[in-house]
Structure formats: structure tokens, C-alpha cells
């Protein structure tokens, strides 16, 4: 098998939130309001793996390490998996597919429209993430998949407005979405061509010490078996 240890860890981690959900379901640990709890937990897993997937390329730029590129797509697909669960819980468990009620209750809620747009775009990326589509779309594929940053920003806003608080006065339960927001902005900055070129030149000149992280990276890149 040519699966590396890093890939193995990535897949393993990605199943942790799902396993915990199943475990809590079986042991009655889903709180008094399971619908809200599962919505929040799947949402958090979705944004977590989305931002991990988003950071793969910038990490590669920062360090020159190529291993992250190999897990980028899988992380994105796991994010999509949790986002899909998140959405299904909302439509099926919470609203029982009562579409008129869903609309009446929610058409005026900005954060849901943001989440919805984010989900549509993420679905498009998930569907076209296969090599076959890459070949078909050529250059357009690259452009399309850069829109993952838009997904990132939409999701951060969705997360932020889903929390009790106020961005302007910086008050309320908004710590986590703010952290994600800062990370996404930093990742975006790292990908701007000027910064990227400047840093890569600098990195090559600096001849960063390879030994300590190098050991870890060599460990991660070893095949699992």
C-alpha cells in the first residue's frame, strides 16, 4: 500500500467526530436537545476540516513540505461529508422536510443563506474533485477550486452569525468563529502571488534547518505498511 502515515492519520482524525457522535447517540450523550447538539457538532467538524484542507497549500508554500498536498482533497471531502450531515439534520430531523415552515421561519436569517451558499459551492467542489473532472475542466478547474476560499469566508460568517454575540462590539460567544476568521485571512494572504513569491525566495535563501522538522516529515511520509 502506498498510503503514507500522514494520510492514515488524516483519515483517522476525520472519523473521530463521526465516531463520537455515534457513541454519544448510543450512550445517551447527545444532551437534552439532540437536534441542536448534532447540528452544532457536525457544523464544527465541517468548518474544522474545511480550514485544515484550506491550509494544505499555504503550509506547502510556507515549509516546502509536499505531504500536505496529498491529504488536501480528502480533508475537503470530509468537510463536505460533515456539512452534508449538518444540512440533513437541519432539513430532516429539525424541520421534518416541512419546506413551507423552513422558508417561513428562516427566509429572513442571513446566516442561513450564507451557510446555504457555502454548502452549494462546497458541493460543486466536492463533485468536481475527481481527476476525471480535473482533466475535463483543465485550467477552469484550478480557478473553480480556488473558490474554496470563498467557501471558507462564507462559512466563517455563517459560524459567526450563528453564535450569540455582536461582531461590532466584539461581544458574545464569538471566540471560535473569530479564530477561524483570522486563520482563513492569514491563509488567503499567504496565497497572494506577491507574498507567495517573496516568501519562497526568502525560504530558499534562508536554507531553513531541515533536521528537526525534517525527521518528523520523513516519518510522516513513510508508507504505512
Amino acid at each position, binding site marked *: 500500500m502506498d498510503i503514507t502515515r500522514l494520510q492514515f492519520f488524516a483519515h483517522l482524525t476525520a472519523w473521530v467526530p463521526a465516531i463520537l457522535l455515534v457513541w454519544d447517540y448510543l450512550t445517551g450523550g447527545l444532551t437534552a436537545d439532540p437536534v441542536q447538539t448534532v447540528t452544532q457538532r457536525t457544523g464544527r467538524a465541517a468548518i474544522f476540516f474545511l480550514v485544515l484542507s484550506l491550509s494544505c497549500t499555504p503550509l506547502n508554500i510556507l515549509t516546502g513540505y509536499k505531504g500536505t498536498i496529498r491529504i488536501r482533497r480528502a480533508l475537503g471531502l470530509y468537510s463536505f461529508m460533515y456539512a452534508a450531515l449538518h444540512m440533513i439534520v437541519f432539513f430532516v430531523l429539525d424541520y421534518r422536510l416541512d419546506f413551507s*415552515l423552513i422558508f417561513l421561519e428562516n427566509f429572513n436569517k442571513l446566516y442561513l443563506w450564507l451557510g446555504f451558499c457555502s454548502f452549494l459551492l462546497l458541493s460543486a467542489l466536492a463533485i468536481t474533485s475527481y481527476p476525471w473532472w480535473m482533466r475535463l475542466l483543465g485550467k477552469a478547474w484550478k480557478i473553480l477550486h480556488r473558490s474554496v476560499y470563498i467557501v471558507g469566508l462564507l462559512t466563517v460568517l455563517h459560524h459567526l452569525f450563528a453564535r450569540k454575540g*455582536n461582531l461590532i462590539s466584539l461581544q458574545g460567544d464569538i471566540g471560535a468563529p473569530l479564530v477561524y476568521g483570522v486563520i482563513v485571512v492569514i491563509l488567503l494572504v499567504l496565497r497572494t502571488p506577491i507574498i507567495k513569491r517573496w516568501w519562497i525566495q526568502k525560504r530558499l535563501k534562508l536554507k531553513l534547518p531541515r533536521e528537526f522538522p525534517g525527521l518528523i516529515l520523513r516519518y510522516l511520509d513513510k508508507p504505512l505498511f
Partner: protein
Amino acid sequence: MGEKIKTMIASSEITSETNYLSRRDFIKAAGLFLGGAGLLAACDTTFPPVSEPSLSPTTTLPSQDRLTTYEDITNFNNYYEFTPDKTRVASLAKDFRVSPWNIEIGGLVHKQKTLGIEDVLSKFPREERVYRLRCVEGWSMVIPWMGFELNQILKEVEPMLSAKYIKFTTLNDPEQMPGLNSGFYPWPYSEGLRLDEAMHNLTILATGLYGKELPNQNGAPLRLVVPWKYGFKSAKAIVKIELVAEQPPTFWNTIAPNEYGFYSNVNPNVPHPRWPQMTERRIGETGRRPTLFLNGYAEEVGHLYDGMNLVENY
């Protein structure tokens, strides 16, 4: 006015929740403060007409109100002084010291007072009140509180004529309440009511639930319960009650004034930017049920808002 039940049962007589639940039939027969509520939502003519279309028929069948379990009431708590995580409040509040505890009642009153919690408990006989609790987040419970009407304590201190509002302040002790260390909030927690709302006999100070002492996570030793308003209006662990002339600033209203108004009456006609307000999830049930105007207490408290536009004064 709804029929009042005074069940003066010593807590020692109520041994367990199971025992308690067996009295449920009796409670139902008494009508409680729950009865007839389903009918009230739609037919109040003193309020501006509903602008939104009504719900589809599948969602308008109110099923009976049943008591939420003690387990759920005491393990699912919005109590930001401890943590925003509703499931962790119970463990974080485990060692909260509820005695000694003083409640200062002052401001625009003729007889300022500081009462120890034991004075409060001995002075004001507790009665049982079964109320719906509707959280602004879109879930609800039915809780058998033990407590006494707030107006009893207010009569003791004799409010001045100039007193128009009442302000409640929660304990501000970061050593005991870890959530208070978060700089994201305007601590201490404070809430407010208009004086007539505070004097209304549905408004109680609770010191117990399910016939037992009030658990720390539910706001021990003394909390407010205003059943026709969203849950956050009912301040917990109260240390100060002040009568004031002007509408006092309140916790969530300070954080996000466009989302949480001073009144914060349960109102299915006022949409919230985040949470659903036309329907709610009743804890322990599946699916959604319609949210009732003034949480089903319109008959009792609707007159407080005669002539007021409750969509503007949300």
C-alpha cells in the same frame, strides 16, 4: 386570571421524581398556568395583526404540555456566568456556595433591606408554579418551580412612586463562576422589568424545582422566573434588586440591541436574526410545536401591553 395552585408540600414529603410524577394527574386537573394556552395565540385583537402568513396545518397541532424531566432541566442550562456550553454548567456549578447569601433590595424604596437567603426562605412561603420556559434559541421546557411572587418582597420594601423599573443583578464572583473571566461580555449579568411586569402575580422568585432545593445550575439560591418572556430575562443567582426610574441596561440587550430587546416577550410574530421564533423544539419531544404568543400567558399578562406595539418594542 389563571387558576393558582398552592401546593404547600414540604420538600421532605416529596421523595423522588417518580413520586413527583405520580402527582402529575393532579397537577393537570388543577389547570396550572398552562391550560387553554393554545387558543390564546391567534385571537388577541389588541395587538397589531400578524404580518406573516400562518403556519401550515401540520405544525399547528399543539400536543399536551408535559413536565420536562428533572434530568433534562438540570443538565441543559444556559448560564454564561459558568460557561456558554449548556451541558457543562451542572458540573462547573457543583461547588457553588449558596450560603451565606445576601440579597440587597434598594434603590427607590422607602425601606431598603438586605435579606439573608434563610430569611427569604422562612419569610415567604413557597408554592409550586408549573410554567413553560421558552428559550430564545428555539427550545422550550415545562418546569415545576417552587417559589413566591416577586410582588411579596417588593411590598416589604415599599417602592416609591418614582420607581418605574426594576433591575436584577447576578453574583459577580469570577473565582466561583469561571465564565466571568471571559472579556467578551459586559459582566455582571443584569436584567430588568417594568414595575408592573414585576408586580404581576405570574412573576416569581424561585428557590426550588420539582419540590427540591433549586440546583446550582438552575440559579440557586434565588432566581427570577418570568414565564411569558424569553428565558434569559430570568436572571439567576440574584444578589441585588434595585428599583429605578429609568429603563435599566440589560445584559443581552447591551451585547446585541437589535437581537434582544428590553421586553423580550415571547412572540412568534417577531423574527430573530438567528433563532426560529414561530416554532420551538420542546425538550423531550420530537419535531416542532408552534410558539405561543406571550408563551401562552396572553390571557394573564396581555393587558400589560395594551396599546403597545410589541413588534417595535420587542
